[in-house]
């Protein structure tokens, strides 16, 4: 019923968008993220006051509902003028391979974005010689969160590598901490796997994996699964019942020592939990990933056959501009994808992340759609679940390799 209503609403919006001077923006930013989107629309309205903006938001975490509605609209031949997608393979593997998106390299050149955005980022959103979306913001996925006071009380320091982490884990277990690491439902475990993999394979190995140069069945990747299994032995047993917020709560309460989560957790700690950075909560790059920035980004693309193409192009220009990104990101709790943003507008955590963004090696996140298409990511969740139950590294690696072949990774 709900979906039917949404589709009906979406259809109503498309018919009304036929009038001139209109722009329809399709996103899943609602609730907490709504004000950030409004700020962006405000910047657009200042520049193009005559255009009526349709904010077609379909709520639902990480776009689960929005993506389903988008699929029905694209297949039905009524694409929105511009829609949100996680930057990278989530867009490329779904819509670009199906030849449904317009190449934006011209826009990148005319706006001078090749220089404003880091090279690694532009590479992640390019394929087949085209650039396919404009990233608005950047989040970091490889952050390990902890409670500084608690670590001091336990007398441990933040581990720098995964072997060191396992040592710290046994120290903490000896001190009576049942689960030194806290994980939540399936996707947070994939999130953890990603950090273990990059921390073990290195940024180069990670890139090779998604370029098809390194097979999942390679002993090094099988080793990633084995390490992941050992890390999961340090984690709570009731994982699948916890949201990422509930998992983060356990770090603050001192039930667990560490949590690996994206940097939206910083927003949760400061805004919802009213904790001060560096005293109430602390952070460090996930073990083995110092000097590596594992990124995910929200971005907008231009579907072929958009009704208001000119308005949509202007919208994309606003998204990539310094003014647009600096209006959006402080409210969203992310950092600008551009390297020239005004850091005075950001909080303590974001400033440190922005500094790393400029200096670190940038690689893409798996679970947040940067390096692998959705079809891989969704099925890989099952592989992780089965691995956690069976602890069969070779089997999991073989299954992942089959998935990669099916999803056309490295082609």
């Amino acid at each position, binding site marked *: 019923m709900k979906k039917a209503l949404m589709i009906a609403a979406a259809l109503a919006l498309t018919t009304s968008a036929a009038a001139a001077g209109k722009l329809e923006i399709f996103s899943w930013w609602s609730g907490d993220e709504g004000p950030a989107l409004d700020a962006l629309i405000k910047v657009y309205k200042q520049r193009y006051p005559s255009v009526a903006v349709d904010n077609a938001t379909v709520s639902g975490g990480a776009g*689960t509902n929005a*993506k*389903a509605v988008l*699929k029905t609209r*694209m*297949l039905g*031949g009524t694409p929105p003028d511009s829609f949100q997608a996680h930057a990278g393979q989530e867009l490329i*593997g*779904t*819509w670009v*391979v*199906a*030849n*449904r998106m317009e190449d934006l390299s011209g826009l990148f050149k005319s706006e001078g974005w090749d220089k404003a955005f880091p090279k690694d980022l532009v590479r992640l959103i390019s394929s087949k010689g085209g650039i396919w979306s404009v990233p608005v913001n950047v989040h970091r996925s490889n952050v390990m969160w902890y409670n500084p006071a608690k670590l001091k009380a336990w007398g441990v320091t933040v581990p720098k590598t995964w072997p060191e982490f396992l040592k710290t884990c046994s120290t903490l277990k000896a001190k009576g901490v049942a689960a030194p690491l806290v994980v939540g*439902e*399936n*996707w947070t475990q994939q999130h953890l796997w990603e950090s273990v993999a990059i921390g073990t394979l290195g940024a180069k190995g990670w890139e090779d994996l998604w370029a098809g140069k390194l097979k999942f069945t390679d002993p090094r990747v099988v080793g990633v699964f084995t390490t992941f299994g050992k890390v999961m032995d340090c984690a709570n*047993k*009731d*994982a*699948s*019942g*916890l949201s990422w917020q509930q998992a983060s709560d356990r770090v603050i309460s001192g039930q667990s020592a560490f949590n690996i989560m994206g940097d939206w957790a910083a927003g949760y700690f400061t805004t919802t939990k009213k904790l001060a950075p560096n005293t109430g909560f602390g952070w460090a790059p996930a073990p083995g990933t110092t000097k590596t920035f594992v990124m995910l980004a929200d971005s907008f693309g231009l579907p072929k056959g958009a009704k208001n193409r000119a308005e949509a192009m202007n919208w994309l220009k606003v998204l990539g501009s310094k003014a647009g990104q600096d209006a959006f990101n402080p409210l969203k709790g992310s950092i600008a994808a551009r390297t020239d943003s005004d850091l005075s507008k950001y909080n303590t955590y974001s400033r440190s992340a922005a500094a790393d963004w400029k200096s670190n090696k940038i690689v893409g996140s798996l679970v947040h759609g940067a390096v692998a*298409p*959705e*079809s891989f990511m*969704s*099925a890989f*969740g*099952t592989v992780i*679940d*089965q691995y*956690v*139950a069976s602890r069969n590294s070779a*089997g999991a690696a*073989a*299954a992942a390799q*089959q*998935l990669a072949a*099916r*999803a*056309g990774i490295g082609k």
Partner: protein
Amino acid sequence: MKGLSKDRLWSVAVLLPSVLLIAVFVYGFIARSVYVSMTDWGNDPAQALALDPVIRFIGLANYQDLFTGFLQGRFRQELVSTVFFTAFFILGCLGLGLGLALILDRNPRGEGLWRTIFLFPMSLSFIVTGTIWRWMLQPGGGVNQAPTLFGGQPSTFPWLSSTEAIWKFDWNKLPLLTASVVAVVLIVVAVRALRAGDRRRTLVAALCAALLLGWALFVAPNLKLLPAPEPHGFNLALIGIIIAAVWQMSGYTMALYLAGLRGIPEELREAAKVDGAGDLGMYRHVIFPLLAPISLSAMIVLGHISLKIFDLVYAMSGPDNINTSVPALNMYLTSFRQNQFALGAAIGTILLILVAFVIVPYLASQFRGEEGHA
């Protein structure tokens, strides 16, 4: 032949639109889904969402993949989970519903109020039920905190997050298991027929049983569905979902049974009493046999609900938890997240067949009954 009278014309004209609509939107779409399930739509990501996708007919390959493919272990676990879920859900609803109905049948004080209370959960949607029970079954809250009310230690049972499974069996043994079960049923049929003196039936049933057993013992062990053993069993995390589902639907069975109990004429009970039946005897020999048809219709309604359940599981443990997953969830994820439309259609078709197993015999018996009355 009466010919086309005005009445007939009218009836045809009135019925035609709905017949056409059902033909297109129910049976037409079923046929289309079955056809899609035999194609490769979605196997190639470049074609999945293209404007003019190239779709090839590949026969039953998708079904083969689901039952024996290396990557589809999740689906097989879901099939096993569905069987367990259905069994426990139906047993729980019938047991609890009958119990409540028997209590209410004794006319306790405030009967109307109790009836409303027990029937109330049914008025909620599964999404609401799921959300409520997810809170109650949280690892550190709700039900697990209940013992502290009585001064005990909080329980630590991971209701929805357990990864333990019991009653495991290897999927490779599935042909052996199914053949044995069917053979046992056939043997029972044969023995019954022998007692009833039906010689032809006895022979046919016994022969089929022997053939099946022979196949199960000599051929099935050499069949290898999967390259490696793959254990599937009853995941303990399902218990929480079964509890919520029983909570939701047992009021419905209670109402059915209560209606049945009230429909038993007082004379029958009195006659039983006169014949010297005690309370227990009366229930066993008079009341329960009269309630049997109600159990059957309740089982059918509950059975098809449990086979296609989706929203309750989605709300309680999310779409990505394979320990509690069901085929309907997998169908949604496969089609709309992985864009594997053909594979999703295959899962949908299997679900349809499962539901048909439950519904069609019931419908057949209903139609036969109606014709008999007419």
